């Protein structure tokens, strides 16, 4: 049961395309969460405040915060509305930040439920409210039924079965120690848990891949001024299959063009466009660039090899794992300049092109496809696409972690089981509850119990 005292968070505008999104918090710590996230101490009730929100010390977005003090709010609790840019990435980060600060994802209809329970709605609306929740739950249920029928559902069911089996082994030892049964050594249980953990990790990672497939791959083109960013974008647009319609979640302050290749949609973001905004100070430009780097799935880092290292060094992303380094302008630069920079980037993924003559553009596109392809899960059919599922899996994995720690710490089985049961509950959020009876059934089926 959800506790009334919790603070919950949810996107309250319909997900998808839209310039502005509203993320809402309700519950006792709503205000303290937003204060922490914005480094602001106080918000006046009912007053829209323009401020910045930070993600891992970096500026994430400019937002408008409106605080509604209990009981003068939709739910009757302290409510905070965060208006942010309608990008999927930003919405998700903001929700993630709120969860890190102690909120949890709202269940379907939970805002309405609270509004009702706190007397914010007419009694005659009760049935209506219940129906809304019912409908939303049906929809969620349908989605999970679809999941259950698919490969991923079957796969997660297998994980659940494995976990039930492990719990059964431990419960067997606790509840039937007077039986003539060989109990499983802890080391074996430990191995099984580690295997399961790896499987879950794979599933969790599949979410990222699933998202890449579903939402397109965000590819900012980064580099110092005049390295050829705009030229590269144009080259792509002339050479590749361009998608004309705007993509869901496009932020309004970037220039974005998409093309399709190898089954993927690449969303090129030309950060050069930023120069035309009011930011005149270079430092500010770098800050912006960093923001795009954070949101990137793949970075194209482009340089003019004839320039010294100092020209591009400050633009270089910290982590070059997901970066392709493009040595541009091979139609004009000298061999030695090229060699020099190739040496500099010898441990990284580099390519030489000419954005002007389009030499190497197809090669680059292939490289980009390959870069995403290697992230493909072993079985491409097993991909989770719902954020809720990802969180359940992460929680499951975390509880397995605790259980593994208890095993290493030589704790008794009932302590280990405690965390495994929590893990099972988390996993069961995806597939439906497992009762102790199911565990006992499993024991009776597999072991000869009874004297």
């Amino acid at each position, binding site marked *: 049961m959800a506790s009334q005292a919790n603070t919950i968070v949810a996107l309250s505008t319909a997900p998808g395309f839209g310039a502005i999104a509203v993320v809402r918090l309700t519950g006792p710590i709503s205000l303290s969460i937003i204060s922490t996230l914005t480094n602001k101490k106080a918000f006046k009730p009912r007053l829209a405040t323009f401020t910045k929100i930070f993600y891992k010390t970096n500026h994430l977005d400019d937002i408008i915060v409106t605080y509604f003090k209990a009981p003068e709010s939709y739910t009757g609790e302290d409510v905070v509305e965060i208006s942010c840019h309608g990008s999927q990435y930003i919405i998700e980060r903001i929700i993630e930040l709120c969860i890190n600060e102690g909120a949890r994802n709202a269940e379907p209809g939970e805002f309405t439920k609270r509004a009702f329970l706190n007397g914010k709605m007419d009694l005659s609306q009760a049935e209506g409210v219940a129906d809304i929740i019912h409908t939303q739950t049906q929809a969620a249920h349908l989605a999970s039924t679809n999941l259950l029928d698919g490969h991923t559902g079957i796969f997660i069911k297998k994980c659940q079965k494995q976990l039930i089996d492990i719990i059964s082994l431990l419960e067997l030892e606790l509840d039937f120690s007077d039986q*003539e049964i060989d109990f499983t050594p802890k080391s074996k249980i430990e191995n099984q848990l580690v295997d399961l953990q790896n499987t879950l990790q794979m599933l969790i990672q599949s979410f990222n891949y699933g998202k890449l497939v579903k939402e397109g791959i965000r590819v900012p083109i980064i580099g110092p001024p005049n390295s050829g960013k705009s030229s590269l974008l144009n080259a792509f647009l002339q050479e590749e299959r361009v998608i004309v319609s705007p993509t869901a979640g496009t932020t309004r302050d970037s220039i974005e063009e998409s093309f399709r290749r190898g089954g993927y949609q690449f969303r090129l973001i030309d950060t050069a466009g930023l120069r035309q905004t009011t930011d005149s100070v270079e430092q500010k430009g770098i800050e912006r660039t960093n923001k795009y780097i954070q949101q990137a799935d793949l970075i194209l880092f482009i340089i003019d090899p004839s320039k010294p290292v100092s020209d591009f060094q400050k633009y270089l992303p910290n982590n070059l794992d997901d970066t392709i380094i493009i040595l541009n302008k091979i139609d004009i630069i000298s061999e030695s300049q090229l060699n020099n920079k190739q040496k500099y980037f010898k441990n990284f993924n580099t390519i030489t092109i000419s954005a002007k003559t389009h030499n190497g553009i197809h090669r680059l596109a292939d490289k980009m496809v390959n870069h995403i392809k290697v992230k493909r899960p072993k079985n491409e059919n097993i991909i989770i696409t719902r954020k809720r599922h990802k969180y359940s899996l992460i929680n499951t994995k975390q509880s397995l972690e605790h259980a593994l720690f208890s095993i290493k710490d030589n704790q008794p089985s009932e302590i280990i089981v405690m965390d495994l*049961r929590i893990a099972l509950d988390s996993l069961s959020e995806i597939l439906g509850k497992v009762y102790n009876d199911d565990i006992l059934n499993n024991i009776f089926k597999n072991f000869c119990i009874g004297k």
Partner: protein
Amino acid sequence: MKTDYEIIVVGGGHAGAEACLASARLGHSTLLITLDKTNISRMSCNPAIGGLAKGHLVAEIDALGGEMAKIADSTGIQFKMLNQSKGPSVWSPRAQSDKIEYSKQMTAVINQQPNLDVLEDCGTDIILENNKIIAINTKNSGNISCKALIITAGTFLNGKIFIGTETQTGGRIGEQAAYGLTESLNSHGIISGRLKTGTPARIEKDSIDFTKTTIQYGDKNPAPFSFQTTDFHPPNVPCYLTHTNTRTHSILERGFDESPLFTGVIKGVGPRYCPSIEDKIVRFKDRTAHHIFLEPEWYNANQYYVNGFSSSLPKDIQLAAIHTIPGLENAEFIIPGYAIEYDFFPSRQIYSTMETKQISGLYLAGQINGTSGYEEAAALGLMAAINASAKIKQIEPLILKRSESYIGVLIDDLITKDPKEPYRMFTSSAEYRLLLRYDTADRRLSEKAFQHGLLPERFYLTVKSKEKLRHTLIEYIQKTNISPTDINPILESKKESLLKSGVILSKILKRPSITFDDISCFLPQNLVDECSKHQNLKNIIEVDIKYEGYIKRNLSQVKSLANNENKKIPSSLDFRKITSITKEAQEKLFKIKPETIGQASRIPGVKPSDITTLLILLSK
């Protein structure tokens, strides 16, 4: 003869014994109706009390002021603490009992109890007025009126015994069954079903060759069930271990076409955790041997219980099969194994007070709730009586939470899970296992028992002073700093890693190999001396400290779920009319009619969103 009582208990088994004693002790004029006065609290099956999770129940019965633990202590002939290699929350006491002495002593307690009469008769009809119990009709003594009726009929209602193709009526071998009550309850809308259980053969001691078996004793330092027991020196009578073999199995297989179990003659469902030997060899074909324990049925018994050989195959097959077992080549039957089928009343029909939802003043308790085991029955009988009394006195009922007792788990599971087979207590059924150690039963329950008037004040005061001492000592251990020079010699002797700087004592005690006694020299001597006077207290403190973090986690889980747990659902609510919950939830809720949101949330098939909807509708 008196024909007017406040509370009448029908059935003198383990549930009935606790029920009638509790009722009389709570000040009600009480009548126990039993078919046979000489068979009160008989152990129909194995001669043992306690065991995994059941030992916990016995300790809780004790803390609530019940009788089972005390009698088990004084009639036990071998004691063992089970699961000692596991964590402390699953340690569980078990005893081999002298079943004749057990019945005798319980009968004596009942006979000496003021306020309590015993009538040898058979209850046949319940008599209602405005859907409320006013009397019971008996076979020989006519109507006897009452304010509350507690039925604890065990396996006796329409009991039917099976041995091979032979069937006979009976509530236990050699005892008549009881007729009338089921039909009477049915006619008032209470649904019944059939369950099955079985028991193995009893054999003659002199026909056993014990030299071919392995002798097994109990613990050298036995621990009693009851926290009230002092000066505890029980005998340590051994059991004997032997085993079946493939010859045994093939002989048994020959009887399968005469098995009432396999030929479908027995309709009732039996417990899977207590299968017959024929069931075991069918389901686990590749097992070539099964353990058989030979257990004495009383002190110096000539009769042994063949534990592990429960069967309803024909007598000659059973005997031929037994003769293949080492040590039992010449075994002679006193009683063959048999199966018994009996009526029960699915527990979704009772409230957590044990009162039926249909009929006011009618309580059902024990094996007729669909349970198995003496301990489960005794616990339910006790709770029924406490709550029947509370209702008459118009005070709050005693409803134990899942987070404070196995009894609470037991009753809640019975009501919400609608079990398909006889329900047995398992520690895994308790989600807050760490909070429910057997040695904390007094801590958890005695306050409530005292308030309800069942636990005598002097025992309650003992518990209180023990608690106070425990708190003081724990606080001391958590606050006292210890220097490396003082503690390192002890750590060294225990091969533990040494300290470089001082720490608090509790940190030392948290180390797995360090015991209370290891650190007691750093505690005030008078407190330690005081501590030794309480049974087991040193160990209790040690465990409390060692598992502190985990216990805290369990407690916070309980807290986070507590919000709507006790929110009442009015009995007038028609779940079928709530269109905004799932169809499955509608059906399940309608069938079980949960009393609280907590109960509703534990019914399989009811989803969290259904609960949300219920909460919304309830706030209307």
